[in-house]
């Protein structure tokens, strides 16, 4: 019985099979696009064939650079990526790729695959194509960080004084990445000294905070009202605090919240009602609260693709 299981397993693809550029994307582009978008070549007639539109697809660096009109691949953003824009045009459009009569248009599942790959950060894996670089992996984060950036649109620099003030209270305060205007604030040290009063110092940075860790602090529902004013908050930890349903109710407007850790708090099923309306929530941690398992299951249903854990 067990041996049979093992035998079947040989056919389970390893993890790298999941959206591998080399295996899933490259063959599509290779077939549909490569002929016209490669390095300059000399034809049989001796004439040099330049890549069409000045756009080469024979290496990650060229694809990221784009062609004479601009964008080729914009990691994290299919709609700004030339390759995706053009394969999604109506087939009759003059900019459609591959050009009319010059190849088979990509199918819907194929274009979806390309979209997904761009959304995931356009990771080229170990494919370097004609790039003679030593590094086979794209610079970590270079692509990924842009994914957060839409969130930072229209944002001003975080106020340095306010950041310093939080630092003096023992908080760890740092930017979410190089050149990012989003910041991460975590109270990890001497948390018993942090209460509702200190929350006021978060106000000047409310627009910039994207992650906030208040676990084990002395904040209550009163201090939570400040948290409700952070439109770019994606991750919040209030575990081990005295926060109750009333405090959670104030989070309703946080449309970007993706992760909420609230174990060992005073929240109950009433909080779950609030959370149900927060459609971006993906992970919710409610261990050691009064939230019932049926209500947790309902929440999980209301938020497709989410994980709600109560133990």
């Amino acid at each position, binding site marked *: 019985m*067990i*041996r049979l*299981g*093992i*035998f*079947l*397993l*040989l056919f*389970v693809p*390893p*993890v*790298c099979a*999941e*959206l*591998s550029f080399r295996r899933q994307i490259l063959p599509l582009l290779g077939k549909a696009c490569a002929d016209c978008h490669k390095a300059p070549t000399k034809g049989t007639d001796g004439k040099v064939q330049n890549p069409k539109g000045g756009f080469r697809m024979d290496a990650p660096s060229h694809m990221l650079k784009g062609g004479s009109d601009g964008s080729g691949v914009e990691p994290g953003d299919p709609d700004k990526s030339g390759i995706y824009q053009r394969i999604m045009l109506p087939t009759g459009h003059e900019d459609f790729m591959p050009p009319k009569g010059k190849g088979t248009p990509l199918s819907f599942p194929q274009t979806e695959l390309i979209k997904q790959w761009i959304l995931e*950060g356009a*990771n080229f*894996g170990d494919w370097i194509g004609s790039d003679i670089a030593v*590094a*086979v*992996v*794209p*610079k*970590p*984060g270079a692509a*990924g*960080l842009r*994914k*957060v950036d839409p969130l930072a649109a229209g944002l001003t620099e975080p106020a340095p004084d306010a*950041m310093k003030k939080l*630092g003096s209270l*023992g908080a*760890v*305060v*740092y*930017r*979410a*990445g*190089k050149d*990012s205007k989003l910041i991460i604030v*975590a109270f*990890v*040290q*001497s*948390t*018993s000294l942090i209460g509702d009063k200190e929350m006021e110092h978060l106000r000047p940075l409310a627009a910039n905070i994207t992650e906030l860790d208040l*676990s084990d602090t002395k904040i209550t529902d009163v201090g939570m009202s400040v948290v409700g004013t952070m439109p770019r908050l994606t*991750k919040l*930890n209030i*575990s081990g605090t005295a926060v109750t349903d009333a405090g959670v109710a104030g989070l309703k407007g946080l449309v970007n919240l993706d*992760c*909420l*850790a*609230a*174990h060992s708090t005073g929240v109950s099923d009433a909080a779950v009602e609030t959370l149900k309306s927060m459609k971006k929530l993906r*992970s919710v*941690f409610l*261990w050691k609260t009064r939230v019932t398992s049926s209500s947790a299951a309902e929440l999980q249903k209301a938020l497709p693709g989410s994980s709600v*854990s109560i*133990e």
Partner: protein
Amino acid sequence: MNFNDTDEFTRRQLLCNIAKAALGVSVAPMFSSSLATAADFLPNRPKAAKSVIFLMMSGGMSHLDTLDVMGKKESVLGETKAIETSAKGIMLSENLPKTAKQMQHICLMNGMSTTQGAHEQGQYLMQRSYTMRGTIVHPALGSWVVRLAGKRNNNLPGFVAVSTDANSAAGGFMGAKYSGVPIGEPGQGLQDSMRPSSINEGDFEKRLKLADAMNKQFHTQITNPGIREHSSLYDDALRLMRCEDLKAFDVKKEPTEISEMYGTSRFGQGCLLARRLVEHGVRFVQVTLGGWDTHYDNFTAVPARAKNLDDGLSALLKDLHRRGMLQDTLVAVGTEFGRTPEIITEHQDGRDHYPKAFSCLIAGGGITGGRFYGKKDDKGGNVVEGMTTPMDFNATISYALGLDTDQVIMSPSGRPFTVADKGKPVVELFS
């Protein structure tokens, strides 16, 4: 013995005496507040993990009896059987039944391969990403992490090494302040740093001042750069004693049912301590479990070891997850090498060292679990897909933390080093 050795000895002795006299602390010169803090750190990727718990299986863990049973021939598995896990299509050895239930959080690294077949050299490469040399000591991974990402809690050390030989947690050329703070018995926490009960607070302050005066005098007399690093020893130790964060070290504060879940072994309690430390902002905790060197009687020795690993690891993953901390905490299980597919009957069914192919695992820290990366042939003797070196493994951990794996740190002798040498992160784990 050369002059440097003598120097080292007197310096240690001196610190040791002063510290002991004043605090009852065994030498722990690592709580330097002059370390960078996380505020200076710019993570290289969004949602970067914040801490690492590195579980080091020292002695060379037999991959065929633990993490890599999938698709393997009975002749190489011997007595070991495969069991199903919580992740569809993934199997583990029956020696890890509780871990199997946490498989949804885990990615097995089954393509591991190293060049080092001796324990010391193998561990050195695994923990430091460089080959051992006579001329330099490379910093441990934990030292790198604190150096590049800074401390998250200034009242606690950035790097703690539980049940770990102090040598393998040494900061090397980065100096003592980046070394892991050694904790021998996790159950006893930082017992030594508590004020000896026979001394009342007034007395204690007096003795401290005295020691401080002695220390200042010592500084004016001897200007060895090594000593400056230790100058804040008292401040730090004192802060530690008074600070509420110190309770992070006290595993006795845990409710019985949680403590029991981790198992009563030293390793299990070490895992519990690791969780508490990470909760309080410690960047890097290493917990070591020895006894994997199963040349003899492999099929009795491995299940015994594996039980400790299974209790500790499964409890750690479960506990971190329900607290919402697993995304922020990368848990790695590493070892210096694997063991031979051949079962050596003359050695009561033992297995010898096998560097060419072995297995590790990574869980949490932003990876997608329930998968495996890399594959060996059906004998478990050759990596056929996804070859991963110790450098790649460490680069992957660094990547999870958002560290810049290209950032060069110069050794005092002016040579350039990076956190994982030339290792390439396995970025696929994160998608």
